[in-house]
């Protein structure tokens, strides 16, 4: 088996993204950047594969220079090498341009058997970049993987979550998996890992180094365009009843009846 490559994204810690009710804008004070929560499971799974098969776990991100912090955190959890695709030319990338750029970065990094991604990022929630990467690389994919049951002789057997339960799939390697929370419990960084992460080299990948087609990256390579951003209508609380249970339940039954059979 060859290396495992994990693609991660640095995102704002969404719990901190709140709306100021007076100005109706995002409150940014104290918004920290974190590794996309779903990517933590991908990193953990990569480190487990590394421990089991003795292969390299390589972590890759695309973003501004400060995304380096996310890569260092991944190293502290046990990743061996880190690459950051960062260039002004990447700004404004939508999922098509992002997955193209990451696919080219993966080709540059070299041979691999497995690519792991979180099922989606917590800021954009698109779930499109993982499948986009596998399509650009023309390798098979399995999305929503909740368990890697077995890997042997360049074939993997995995469990894929569906709305009703799960499927067991067999796929040839190399393959891309997007993973869900159920797959594992991410470890805390070890002291040794933290020490290593501080001095680890973060390999920078620029547009020029990746030999990208200019009209397929950044804003120009992005077919979708955001034309408007606004706050959703905030839900207002309704009636809160705190009297005798009997009376509250009667009111509730009336509401349910109306909603169900109106």
């Amino acid at each position, binding site marked *: 088996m060859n290396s495992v490559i994990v693609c991660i994204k640095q995102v704002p810690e969404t*719990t901190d993204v709140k709306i100021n009710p007076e100005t109706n804008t*995002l409150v940014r004070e104290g918004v920290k950047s974190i590794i996309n929560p779903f990517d933590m499971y991908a990193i953990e799974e990569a480190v487990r594969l590394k421990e089991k098969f003795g292969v390299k776990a390589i972590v890759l991100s695309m973003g501004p220079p400060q995304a380096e912090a996310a890569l260092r955190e991944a190293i502290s959890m046990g990743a061996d090498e880190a690459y950051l695709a960062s260039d002004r030319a990447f700004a404004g990338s939508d999922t098509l341009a992002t997955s193209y750029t990451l696919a080219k970065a993966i080709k540059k990094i070299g041979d691999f058997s497995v690519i792991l991604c979180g099922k989606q990022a917590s800021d954009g929630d698109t779930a499109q970049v993982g*499948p986009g990467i596998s399509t650009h690389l023309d390798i098979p994919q*399995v999305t929503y993987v909740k368990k890697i049951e077995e890997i042997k002789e360049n074939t993997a057997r995995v469990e894929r979550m569906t709305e009703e339960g*799960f499927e067991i799939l067999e796929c040839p390697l190399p393959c891309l998996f997007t993973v869900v929370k159920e797959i594992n419990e991410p470890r805390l960084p070890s002291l040794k890992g933290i020490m290593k992460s501080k001095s680890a080299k973060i390999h920078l990948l620029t547009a020029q180094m990746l030999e990208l087609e200019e009209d397929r990256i950044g804003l120009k390579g992005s077919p979708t365009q955001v034309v408007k*951003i606004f*706050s959703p209508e905030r839900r207002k609380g309704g009636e*809160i009843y705190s009297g005798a249970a*009997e009376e509250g339940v009667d009111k*509730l039954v009336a509401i349910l009846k109306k909603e169900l059979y109106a």
Partner: protein
Amino acid sequence: MSLHISKENCVGCTLCVKACPFAALTMVEKKAVVNLDLCTLCGACVAECKFEAIALKREKTDFVNLESKGVWVFCEQKRGVIQSVSYELLGKGRELATKLKTELCAVLLGHEVEQKTQELICRGADVVYLVDHPALKNFLDDPYTNVLVRLIKKYKPEVVLSGATSVGRSLISRVAVKIHAGLTADCTGLDIDEHKRLLLQTRPAFGGNIMATIITPNHRPQMATVRHKVMKEAAIDPKHKGRIVKETFEEDTFVSRTKILDVIEEISSTVNIAEADVIVSGGRGMKGPENFKLLEDLARALNAAVGSSRAAVDSGWMPYSHQVGQTGKTVCPKIYIACGISGQIQHLVGMQSSKTIVAINSDPHAPIFQVATFGIVGDLFEVVPLLTKKFKEAFE
């Protein structure tokens, strides 16, 4: 590609600073200044500026195929059953097709599903593109992608819609990359700019804290996946007429690199939370797995599904497939009943678009009450069984 601020036009009103989701704009000597290291060129400030002081310089590329026509709905089937999100999309698709003065087309892939085409026509499809092949019985990325790409290349639709399900999100992402199309995920609102023939795609981002409207100006088809339970199902009209177009492709189109070994259904006893009209959900306040029986009783009376907060899943009281919230599923039922759930933001983002929210919690200060349509402050171990009993009585 860059953001340009005209010092002449800028009046220092700070609207753009407030609009920027990435804190990339600041005021320097009463003029807006952009920090390009933080700016992602999202364009939020351009839309907000009232003085035409900000411009996003974009070189125009033109991939619009003027021949493209038709609004397509990828109609997902599982074991031969059309999924309800497909009917919702046919409902919305009819509205979009009317505005574009074009046909509404359903795309159906499966095995021995021809009898289902009539159902799609009754739901408003003017054309049903049918590809029937043993390899399409269950969803697999490779054959489904190959077939849909070939259909799109042959018939050149203007708009392609699919449910944002575990199938739709995998499949449509791959198709969009293959044909270099723009794709907007997880939309909650769709409309048409009739003049420019553009699909206006509105979706939540940042866990539902902001909404964004997205367009695909220069590429066709315009593709979007759409959330469940947001659009209204198309009504059944047995008189609606439509034609069926059967397509076949050479065998290598149907080859799959991945293989399904087994399909396991876990949620057969309870209703699937993504599909449910009513969800009864429990959190830390349930105090233990044995107490979820109370919720199951209520769910049975209401014909509801049982959901759960992350706290209850992490404690091992409920399987992950029932988890609602940021790291679980996003649901949008008609009625969501939260029992013993405090309402952390991570939970709220998964359920706050439900039509009616009911909260039952002993803590009057629990944040869940801030979003509840109706709340009862009380002991859920008293309230829930009483509710089950009274609801049953009301329908006897």
